[in-house]
């Protein structure tokens, strides 16, 4: 039934998806090798982190227990902020080329459309709200990039079987086809997924909530003229009383998600003679082939702390959400981006180890936000008691013509980046009119480069801290990158100034992850220095 390999070969060419084990020079060297950073898990989070660290000049060893990209139907929706990160890492273009861009979602109740929403209603952004692209294609592109990144050492069929963390580093025991070996690291980052073996080896509690419902997730191949939109049904005639989701992927593959209820028998529901007719009822025809079928239950849970001495956790290893809202892979890649610049600064000695505690604070906040949103969506989609069912029915009923009820209707609150409440931000002293505030991700805007080419603001930003200034530049420290609007880039449509509420003399201090650290109407040198110290964890 599950012929996911077929899908893989269609979507990933020319990116390889199987990799050979190779004996590393650390094995049988007679002494234990030492590395600044070891990443466990070559999924999207571990790969993005390794590429980012490599590009920052930090050598990194990536250990993965498999020798291939895992197949199966996993993440498909990659959000704007994630695409901006991919773009900074140099893989934005292949992702966009292979992915299917979408901004519009439609919600149906029974047999009628209730309303449509546009996740990116304004123009002037380099990246779309979302692309749909199977996770294994994303991983294949990231593996190719990681292999081409100096300093990234990918080791397949290297299974971590032991970890011994101390206050100054960690020793990792690794099982390979050639036997066991051990390496030492200053820092270990576990990106080894929801069932994280590292978490288990360290005996860490992964607490949260299980949702008592089962969902059928299927990828089907078919030729269809349905637009590239997210379609969600509450109680459709083809699947009475339950919810359904239809979402397009590249290469004529469609993701289908059908709520089955807690009493459904997973083994029975997975049988082709049961799944086939279910999906035929939804599509109104049987001209499709099943590529992948799984039955899921959802959980929302997190580690209480993401940093355990020198062992750090990122992605699903640190936190897990239900899939409504595409907050799993997207938040994991944003974990990687948050951690990469901090870890690089600490390893290089540019920042104290205390900077890493801001990773726990900021991405812990993001995890809480994601768990809250995904729990609320799951509770709306699968109401847990009679009163909840009644209120959901009322919302669906009112949403036909009352805009307020459409805002309560919840088929998944789709992933948006978190505005960090963090000690790395400098509180405002001037007044500003934007929703963007210190800690927020920077908005995008169309710009023209000094050479005359059209581009986008976010694509112009360096991977370091940077001061974006409107009008005459204040005196700045030598090691701070400065981007002058009007000289280095032209705000050709005035949208950058509008989205930042910038006036002549305004300056914006951006973090290496392109979140806002500080802003002023007319900064002086000392204010910029103090904000930089704060950003580097020195304040």
């Amino acid at each position, binding site marked *: 039934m599950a012929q996911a390999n077929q899908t893989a070969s269609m979507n990933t060419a020319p990116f390889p998806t199987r990799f050979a084990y190779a004996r590393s020079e650390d094995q049988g060297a007679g002494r234990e090798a030492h590395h600044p950073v070891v990443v466990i898990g070559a999924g999207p989070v571990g790969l993005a982190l390794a590429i980012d660290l490599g590009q920052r000049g930090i050598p990194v060893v990536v250990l993965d227990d498999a020798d291939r990209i895992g197949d199966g139907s996993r993440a498909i929706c990659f959000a704007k902020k994630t695409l901006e990160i991919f773009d900074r890492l140099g893989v934005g273009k292949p992702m966009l080329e292979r992915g299917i861009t979408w901004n519009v979602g439609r919600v149906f109740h029974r047999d009628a459309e209730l309303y449509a929403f546009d996740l990116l209603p304004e123009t002037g952004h380099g990246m779309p709200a979302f692309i749909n692209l199977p996770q294994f294609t994303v991983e294949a592109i990231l593996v190719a990039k990681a292999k081409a990144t100096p300093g990234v050492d990918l080791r397949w069929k290297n299974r971590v079987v032991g970890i011994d963390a101390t206050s100054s580093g960690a020793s990792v025991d690794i099982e390979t086809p050639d036997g066991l070996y051990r390496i030492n690291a200053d820092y270990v980052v576990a990106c080894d997924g929801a069932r994280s073996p590292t978490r288990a080896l360290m005996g860490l509690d992964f607490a949260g909530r299980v949702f008592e419902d089962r969902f059928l997730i299927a990828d089907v191949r078919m030729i269809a003229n349905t637009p590239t939109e997210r379609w969600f049904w509450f109680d459709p005639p083809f699947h009475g009383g339950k919810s359904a989701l239809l979402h397009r992927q590249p290469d004529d593959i469609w993701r289908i998600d059908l709520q089955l209820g807690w009493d459904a028998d997973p083994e029975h529901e997975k049988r082709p003679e049961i799944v086939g007719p279910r999906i035929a009822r939804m599509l109104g025809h049987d001209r499709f082939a099943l590529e992948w079928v799984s039955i899921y239950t959802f959980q929302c849970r997190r580690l209480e702390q993401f940093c355990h001495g020198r062992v750090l956790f990122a992605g699903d290893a640190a936190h897990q959400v239900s899939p409504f809202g595409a907050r799993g892979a997207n938040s994991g890649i944003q974990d990687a981006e948050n951690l990469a610049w901090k870890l690089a600064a600490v390893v290089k000695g540019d920042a104290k180890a205390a900077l890493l505690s801001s990773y726990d604070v900021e991405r812990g906040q993001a995890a809480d936000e994601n768990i809250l949103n995904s729990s609320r969506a799951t509770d709306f989609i699968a109401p847990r008691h009679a009163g909840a069912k009644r*209120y959901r*029915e*009322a*919302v669906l009923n*009112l949403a036909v013509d*009352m805009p*307020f*009820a459409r805002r*309560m209707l919840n088929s998944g609150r789709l992933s948006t980046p978190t505005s960090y409440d963090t000690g790395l931000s400098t509180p405002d002293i001037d007044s500003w009119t934007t929703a963007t505030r210190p800690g927020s991700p920077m908005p995008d805007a169309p710009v023209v480069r000094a050479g005359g080419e059209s581009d986008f603001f976010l694509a112009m930003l360096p991977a370091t801290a940077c001061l974006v200034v409107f009008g005459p530049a204040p005196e700045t420290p030598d090691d701070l990158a400065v981007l002058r609007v009007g000289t280095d880039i032209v705000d050709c449509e005035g949208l950058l100034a509008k989205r930042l509420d910038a006036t002549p003399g305004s300056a914006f201090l951006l973090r290496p992850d392109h979140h806002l650290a500080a802003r002023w109407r007319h900064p002086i040198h000392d204010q910029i220095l103090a904000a930089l110290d704060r950003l580097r964890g020195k304040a």
Partner: protein
Amino acid sequence: MSALPTENRFADPDAAYAAIVDAHEGLSEAESAAFDARLVLILANVIGDLAILRAAIEAARKR
């Protein structure tokens, strides 16, 4: 916690009460409950203040 107005605010409270009750006339238990849910949501949006809404929920719950 917002102060929840509990003094009468209607010029004709009897008419307000009658309007709500009369709307339930002829409804089954289930229809009545569904009606109330719609009404609560519409009124909650008119209030448009989460603190007042929570105070009202608390006031109703502790009876």
